[in-house]
């Protein structure tokens, strides 16, 4: 039964990222860590912040276990370790799942009647949170987005031109035009401006969620750390190892890599 009416078809409830590819599972699991009081390696506290003991702390293990438990109630697709952002979207557009926690950038097809069966029955909200001991709700989630990347071997002319492009991009008109075309802005002056929420059905939820964003590491070892982490998470998601085992392996690996790079002492 759903909203008082019996369901015609197989339908599953909530779905979130659980994919091995790229950063899919990490993006969701990090949210679980933070909401339950745990943390990832704190890069702002180099070289004192450790990975061992932090990444596999009891809170993190508990949080990860909760993530895995909820997975068990989801659509069986996750068992292959391939429940990435696109698979979820495909399921959602076809009306096979009731709700998904996904990037807002994948919102546009949802309102396109050519590909979406749920155009007129979709609503948007902030990501769910965890009730804390003191009664408040923590809604921490991993920040998403696309960066500008400036390389170190550009000529002065190229650097000038790059700056001009960034200034143009961050101007009000360009940002609003980008949002109208389906993007999002990261600038407070713009997202809190009048009329922003009206530009797209999900903007209100997006703006509200901005208070609760944290990010992953920004070090050159990023991709190695991420790849290994994804691998271990994937093994746990597909039921080959347990939550503590996975986190222990991740913590050990991160400790080693970061020590080698001189970021941990």
């Amino acid at each position: 039964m759903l909203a008082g009416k019996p369901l015609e078809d197989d339908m599953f409830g909530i779905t979130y990222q659980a994919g091995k590819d790229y950063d899919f599972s990490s993006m969701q699991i990090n949210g679980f860590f933070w909401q339950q009081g745990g943390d990832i390696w704190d890069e702002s506290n180099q070289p004192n912040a450790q990975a061992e003991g932090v990444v596999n702390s009891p809170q993190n293990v508990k949080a990860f276990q909760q993530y895995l438990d909820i997975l068990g109630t989801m659509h069986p697709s996750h068992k292959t370790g391939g429940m990435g952002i696109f698979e979820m979207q495909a399921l959602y557009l076809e009306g096979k799942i009731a709700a998904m926690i996904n990037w807002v950038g994948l919102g546009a097809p949802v309102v396109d009647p050519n590909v979406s069966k749920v155009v007129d029955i979709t609503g948007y909200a902030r990501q769910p949170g965890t009730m804390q001991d003191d009664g408040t709700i923590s809604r921490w989630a991993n920040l998403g987005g696309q960066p500008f990347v400036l390389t170190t071997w550009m000529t002065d002319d190229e650097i000038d031109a790059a700056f001009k492009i960034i200034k143009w991009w961050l101007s009000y008109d360009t940002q609003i035009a980008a949002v109208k075309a389906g993007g999002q802005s990261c600038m407070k002056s713009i997202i809190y401006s009048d009329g922003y929420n009206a530009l797209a059905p999900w903007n209100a939820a997006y703006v509200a969620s901005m208070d609760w964003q944290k990010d992953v590491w920004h070090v050159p070892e990023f991709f190695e750390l991420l790849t290994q982490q994804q691998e271990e998470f994937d093994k746990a998601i597909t039921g080959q190892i347990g939550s503590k085992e996975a986190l222990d392996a991740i913590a050990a690996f991160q400790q080693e890599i970061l020590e080698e790079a001189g970021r941990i002492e």
Partner: protein
Amino acid sequence: MNSNNGFIGWLLDPKRRGPLLIAPAIFVLLLVNIIPLMWSFGLSFFKFRANKLKAPDFSWFYNYEKVLQKEKIWEALQTTAIIVAGSVGIQMILGFLLALLFAKKFPLRRILLMLILTPMMLSYVAVAIFFKLFYEPEFGLLSQFVQQFTGEMYVLLATPAGALIGVIIADAWQWTPFVMLLVLAGLVSVPKHLYEAAEIDRVSWWRTFTTITFPYVRSLLLLAVLFRTIETFKIFDVVFILTNGGPGTATETIAVLVYRTAFQYFRTSNSAAMGYILLFIVIVLTSLYLYVIKQRDSEEI
């Protein structure tokens, strides 16, 4: 035609004909293949990572040691071996049977042959993506078919065994036509009068097969197996798209492992070492294979 004097004569001299004929081939291969191979072979003796600006350190066999000690490469080799054995085995049997089916002339033969050859003409990416769709638990044909009987979605790629089977089927489906075509080329070259004579003599089907058919087909079948094995060892695209090496690392073939090491972990020289270990293994296997063939050949004479 008598040899002319001078340079052309020297060039066209019968003694030099062999080398002359093979020279262009060797030249092209040298340029485009051997030199890069030497470069990455050399790299495997240095410590180098593509995401750091440090110059490579010469470190002898450091990379090889590190690679051989870690379990990962042995697992990957085992996985690769399973996939190769499974896929090539199916290709051989199925390919041979299909070739037998098409060896005779019958109406519509040309068109039906094309139907079977088509899978081979598709790109890896195409095959991988659509097989992924077939195996998909919600939208895929396989799952929906099974659902008719069990009422539940079937997730083939959820278990290590299932994932391996999924990959093997996709690969074998695509390349069986290759084996079939080679065997067919051999089958049709059997002279008809031999078959006619056998029929007159009332020779049994099996004996006809082993004494007349098989010898003509043998060398081509062996060639097909050789090439398919070498190619399947390198399998990457289908595995990567279908399962991404998963679940976990269950379908992480050696090529996938090398890719991840080189482009996700940025251990560039490490991956070069891995590659050469693979090359070494394939060389050993191929030599063994060719040796056995030669033995059988000389036994027959």
